[in-house]
């Protein structure tokens, strides 16, 4: 089944995993394409949901959105399994690998020994692929690593059955049946419109409005006796963007790449080009925004909440403009 499997490194774990999975099962799909047709670009700021005492901030749709939506959008039959019993989960995984399957897994970063020590946090929605087992060792294609990595069965099991928010519950998946005639033109058009609408949602904590909401709460930050919180809050925003996200506004670049690739499919080229440029601008602005956040955290004497806030608003304007364009695609 996965004879043509080839490990590649990607910007983001979920879109990377889906790209490699589908490609090795016969449907060549790039990472930006996987990200774009599942309408994954987003922004969410939920101050009332706390993770490690920090509000929930996300620069894309919730984890598992790509896996779930790609089967819907492309009409792919995806085998998805969850487990209660780790022993059974391991048995079935080994069996699938022996049948020459490439299998996607959801794991917690904290329990994966091949991750650098300081990157190991309790983030439960990391995606990777397993393709071989020798003795007690699994061979893993982890999309954020340059090369193949290995992991002991015991530790991988721990990572697959980690508890907490987004608990993976041994979740595994692989495509079972892929249709041959896919009308990409229609699918891409629909996906772009859907994404544009979701960025322009009236819900005040998401999309363009969510960015402005966050900008407003930054502008309201006051230093008095609040230094530790401000430092942690600002770097938390950056982490969600850079580390959990990808390369500082990297999701924006990913989406720009998708729009660029979509030109092949008989859509309005000028419109796509313009929107793509706007998302690159937004990504660049978000990187400047991250830089401002970190500069302030390094030296709180220079903390300038209005300036940071304005940068984020600037990015939101580019995204609003791009989304309005894309609604017409």
């Amino acid at each position, binding site marked *: 089944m996965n004879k043509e499997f080839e490990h590649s490194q990607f910007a983001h774990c979920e879109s990377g995993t889906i790209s490699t999975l589908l490609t090795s099962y016969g449907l060549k799909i790039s990472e930006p394409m996987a990200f774009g047709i599942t309408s994954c670009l987003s922004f969410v700021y939920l101050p009332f949901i706390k993770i*490690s005492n920090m509000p929930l901030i996300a620069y894309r749709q919730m984890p598992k959105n790509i896996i779930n939506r790609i089967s819907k959008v492309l009409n792919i039959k995806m085998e998805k399994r969850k487990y209660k019993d780790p022993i059974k989960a391991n048995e079935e995984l080994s069996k699938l690998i022996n049948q020459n399957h490439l299998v996607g897994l959801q794991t917690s970063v904290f329990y994966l020994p091949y991750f650098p020590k300081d990157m190991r*946090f309790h983030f439960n929605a990391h995606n990777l692929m397993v393709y071989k087992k020798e003795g007690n060792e699994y061979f893993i294609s982890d999309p954020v690593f*340059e090369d193949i990595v290995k992991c002991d069965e015991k530790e991988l099991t721990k990572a697959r059955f*980690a508890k907490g928010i987004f608990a993976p519950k041994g979740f595994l998946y692989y495509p079972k049946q892929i249709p041959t005639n896919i009308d990409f033109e229609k699918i891409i058009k629909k996906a772009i419109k859907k994404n544009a609408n979701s960025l322009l949602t009236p819900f005040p904590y998401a999309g363009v409005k969510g960015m402005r909401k966050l900008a407003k709460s930054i502008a309201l930050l006051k230093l008095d006796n609040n230094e530790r919180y401000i430092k942690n809050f600002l770097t938390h925003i*950056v982490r969600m963007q*850079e580390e959990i996200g990808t*390369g*500082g506004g*990297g999701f924006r670049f990913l989406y720009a790449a998708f729009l*660029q690739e979509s030109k092949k499919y008989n859509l309005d080229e000028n419109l796509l080009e313009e929107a793509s440029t706007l998302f690159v601008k937004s990504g660049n602005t978000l990187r400047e925004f991250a830089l401002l956040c970190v500069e302030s955290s390094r030296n709180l004497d220079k903390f300038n909440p209005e300036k940071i806030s304005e940068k984020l608003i600037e990015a939101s304007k580019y995204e609003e403009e791009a989304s309005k364009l894309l609604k017409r695609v």
Partner: protein
Amino acid sequence: MEKIDIPQEENKILEGHRKVMYVSDEKGEFHTENYGSSVEEFATKTAVEEFDLLAKESLKKIQLNEASPIEYYMYKNRMDFPTLVSVVGMFSFRVKRHLKMKNFKKLSDKILNRYCEAFNISLEELKGFKV
């Protein structure tokens, strides 16, 4: 096409690994390229240091007989309270009690073992915890 700058700074946290991001060339074609971001490094380092700081503060509270070693190990394992609750599978009001020294001292080995498993330590390490 708007230019994308690829940061090539040091990021020690990655321990020699390199991540990729999407960039476009002059023709507007996108491809992945390695990058290194000191901004990313600082943000991650701050998060790591915050857990270290919380663990240190916990040690002080243990000395004063306020907090229990469970609180210390929670931070040491980079967990927040809801994560710990979910890992040990008890009600949160119970776990909250166990974070206090006076309640911790009354705990049975059976309960303590559940925490040991969560933190991957031995019963002795937890029971005989010394600051």
